[in-house]
């Protein structure tokens, strides 16, 4: 059975259970007043029924955050963010949505259609209200998806010994595990946005894979920002014990809005001896309209610690969304012979700005890292690869290979490459190469001559350009990602 069909069926099954509780619970939730202060943090913590230590941790993070300044070094520009002008605890109230597909913005529908999502799913994604009793048995609404996946497969996962649940639940049900690892990879005070996240995070996923267990299925979470004037601060913690392995997928979408919304997530990965974690992201937050209005500010801290010998952490990301992306999934290669990988495609169009890359910190002997970053800029966008490869004195035999390629489409965009290469060990080998060019006239001519439209030709060439990264994605994601690339670049040629 083709993977896509399989996924769809799996999703359909999820859909039925979604409505049973995930959706209803949310309705009962409410919205905290705008602003950020200790009382709001206490409110979040009490709504989440968190233990005292969690509240204290949040308050400490808040104190740290207050003393910090927003980082200014990234090559992105945006008006100052008023952190008091957002709701930090907000559950989307169900508002009367469009009554039928006809009322939905055709632009939105077209996007879903191109993503290969069937029409009835599109209806749900667009928030079309369906009368009680006639609800379709499919729901792909992302906010609830993570919860429902956890619910549906919880039994299978439990049998394998894997814990996969919302982090707020993990704080209550598995406090010892959470407490042991939370904030150990990304300390609250690591940076401005991680401190903010630590203070106010509301949900996210927790994954624990015990010793020797290979997680029997891919775990997936779809994040979606729904409500207006809210920030989203999710927190993901994945711990894989000795010899375990897991593949985790993360998808992000957001509805179109005029105003900018802040998304400041923190993802922490911990891999012990011989453990492996594969973390894939298809980030498609609303990028703003063609005039640069609206869109998500995506300021994310993702970091993995290869603590054990021969452990492996692999980041794969396809970044097509967000008005501004500020994101550097990193690996701390501590265990001897541990491996870090970073595969990235970042596409910017219109007025999008992306400053993204990775950090590979080699601490242990014979650690290896690979960085493949493909950057595509179109329209009036700016895209920057910023990466750090650091080899510490003890990392003898460390090896890094980095390749960054940028493609420029149109003469109003910018593509930048800023690698930082630091070696303190003579027995380490580091190689870095980067190129910047436009789509070659020859390739374009070749495709056009065979009857492809210019847009299709560009899509084809771009997909080829990104192949090294796309082939790292799990099958379903790869299909989605390819289509996303094409959609993102729409209108950038001709």
């Amino acid at each position, binding site marked *: 059975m083709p993977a896509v069909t399989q996924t769809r069926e799996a999703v359909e099954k999820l859909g039925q259970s979604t409505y049973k509780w995930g959706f209803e619970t949310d309705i009962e939730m409410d919205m905290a007043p705008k602003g950020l202060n200790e009382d709001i943090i206490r409110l979040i913590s009490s709504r989440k029924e968190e233990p005292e230590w969690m509240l204290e941790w949040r308050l400490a993070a808040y104190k740290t955050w207050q003393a910090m300044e927003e980082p200014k070094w990234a090559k992105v520009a945006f008006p100052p963010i008023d952190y008091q002008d957002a709701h930090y605890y907000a559950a989307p109230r169900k508002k009367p949505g469009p009554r039928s597909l006809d009322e939905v913005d055709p632009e939105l529908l077209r996007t879903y259609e191109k993503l290969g999502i069937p029409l009835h799913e599109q209806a749900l994604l667009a928030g079309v209200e369906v009368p009680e009793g006639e609800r379709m048995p499919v729901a792909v609404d992302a906010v609830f998806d993570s919860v429902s996946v956890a619910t549906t497969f919880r039994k299978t996962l439990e049998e394998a010994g894997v814990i996969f649940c919302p982090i707020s639940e993990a704080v209550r049900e598995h406090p010892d595990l959470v407490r042991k690892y939370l904030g150990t990879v990304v300390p609250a005070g690591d940076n401005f946005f991680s401190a903010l996240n630590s203070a106010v995070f509301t949900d996210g996923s927790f994954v624990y894979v015990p010793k020797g267990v290979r997680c029997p299925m891919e775990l997936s979470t779809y994040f979606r920002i729904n409500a207006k004037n809210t920030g989203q601060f999710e927190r993901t913690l994945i711990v894989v014990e000795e010899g375990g392995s897991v593949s985790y997928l993360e998808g992000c979408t957001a509805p179109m809005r005029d105003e900018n919304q802040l998304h400041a997530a923190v993802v922490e990965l911990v891999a012990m001896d011989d453990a492996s974690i594969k973390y894939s992201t298809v980030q498609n937050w609303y990028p703003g309209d063609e005039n640069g209005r609206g869109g998500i500010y995506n300021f994310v801290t993702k970091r993995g610690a290869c603590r054990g010998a021969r452990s492996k952490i692999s980041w794969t990301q396809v970044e097509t969304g967000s008005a501004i992306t500020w994101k550097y999934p990193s690996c701390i290669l501590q265990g001897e012979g541990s491996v870090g990988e970073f595969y990235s495609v970042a596409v910017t169009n219109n007025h999008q700005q992306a400053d993204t890359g990775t950090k590979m910190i080699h601490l242990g002997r014979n650690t290896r890292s690979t960085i493949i970053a493909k950057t595509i800029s179109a329209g009036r966008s700016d895209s920057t690869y910023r990466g750090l490869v650091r080899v510490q004195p003890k990392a003898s035999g460390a090896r890094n290979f980095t390749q960054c390629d*940028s493609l420029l489409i149109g003469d109003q965009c910018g593509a930048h490459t800023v690698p*930082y290469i630091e070696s303190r060990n003579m027995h380490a080998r580091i190689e870095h190469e980067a190129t910047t060019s436009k789509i070659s006239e020859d390739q374009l001519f070749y495709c056009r001559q065979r009857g492809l439209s210019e847009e299709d030709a560009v899509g084809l060439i771009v997909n080829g350009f990104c192949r090294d990264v796309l082939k790292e994605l799990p099958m379903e994601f790869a299909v989605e990602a390819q289509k996303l690339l094409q959609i993102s670049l729409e209108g950038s040629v001709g």
Partner: protein
Amino acid sequence: MNALSKDMSGPLALFANRLNTLAGAERQSAAGALARTGLPDRKVEAWHYTTLRALGKQDYAAPPMQVEASTVRSLLDGVLQAHPAMAALPRVVFVNGRHAPAFSALPDDVDLSFFADDPQFGQQAAPDRDPLVALNTALAEDGLVLRVPAGVDAGHVMLISLGVAGVDPLSFHPRHTVVVEKEAHLRLICVQAGQGAYFHNPVTDIQVEDGATLEHLTLQTEGAQAVSLGTLYAHVGQQSVYDSFVLGLGGQLVRHEVHARLAATRGVVHVNGAQRLAGQQVGDITSVITHAASDCTSRQTVRNVLDGHARGVFQGKVLVERIAQKTDGYQMNQALLLSPEAEIDAKPELEIYADDVRCSHGATVGALDDDQLFYLRSRGIPEQEARQMLIDAFLDEAIALVEDATAQTFCRAVMAARFAGKGESA
């Protein structure tokens, strides 16, 4: 004394006495800019990898008016004996930042004057953006002003800067201007050397006018205690060539910062270099190559060999402006680490706003290749010698990029003189 004095904290205090008694609007405004920003620390992105701690805590005095002639003579002989052909070339000698006519052999064919006689700060330097240029602007006393008239091939000219200091540190801030007029040609060889604790802070303003060529070699062999922080601006006109190479061997802390601007079409810029450092040396090669016109070419290859506790820094930015279509840019930085304590920090950077370009950069870091070493040893070459061969070959690939044959010979000679029989220093 003026109001600046209270702002002169930190490393700036080292120059406070001199900065407080400046005449002229340009110098005062530079000192004002300096007082606002201070000298750069690690938080300034352009100085992320190089700290100015080596400047120490002692005040930097202005150099004395009289310097022992025999000391200068022996330093100069030391420079010139690197290669027999050197002494025959016309030269302008500066001692502690001031022209020393007694030691110079001035060139013909060029218009020569001196900053001290008519201080002109030029258009390119930006004291408000670069604190070290501001420091130079405030304190510059003298400098070479060299102009090659249109259409003239001026051959070789040497600019030799000698620092002569004792235990108490002194600083000098020469301000050089080199203009190669239309269709003219100049081969400029700058040598920096000296002894004692001094801080050399030159600013060089270079203009290569349309169709002209400047081949520029810098042999940087500053004294062991020297701090040398130089900034160079090059304005490259239509179809003109600025071909530069820096060989970095000396000094305690040395930074060679180049801002080259391809201002008109079909210009060519080469900012190549090699450095071989040992002990506690820090060598920093920083460049910003701006493509501000279409159809220009830039090339940069920098090789570093680092031994002992030495630290090499390479920061190279290629900026391609919106208008600079058909740009061809290439940049390569390679480093060889010879000791467990050596360190390299590299930041090759592309900032590109035009789409029809071909730009690439690469960087590699590693130790000597065991296979290559084995190959040589299996042919009976002793290990020490084999290592030396590989190191020489690694650096020689960069030196081979120097197009002027004479300059290339000098590079090899200086290198050989410094490392002759020494092998790798510990």
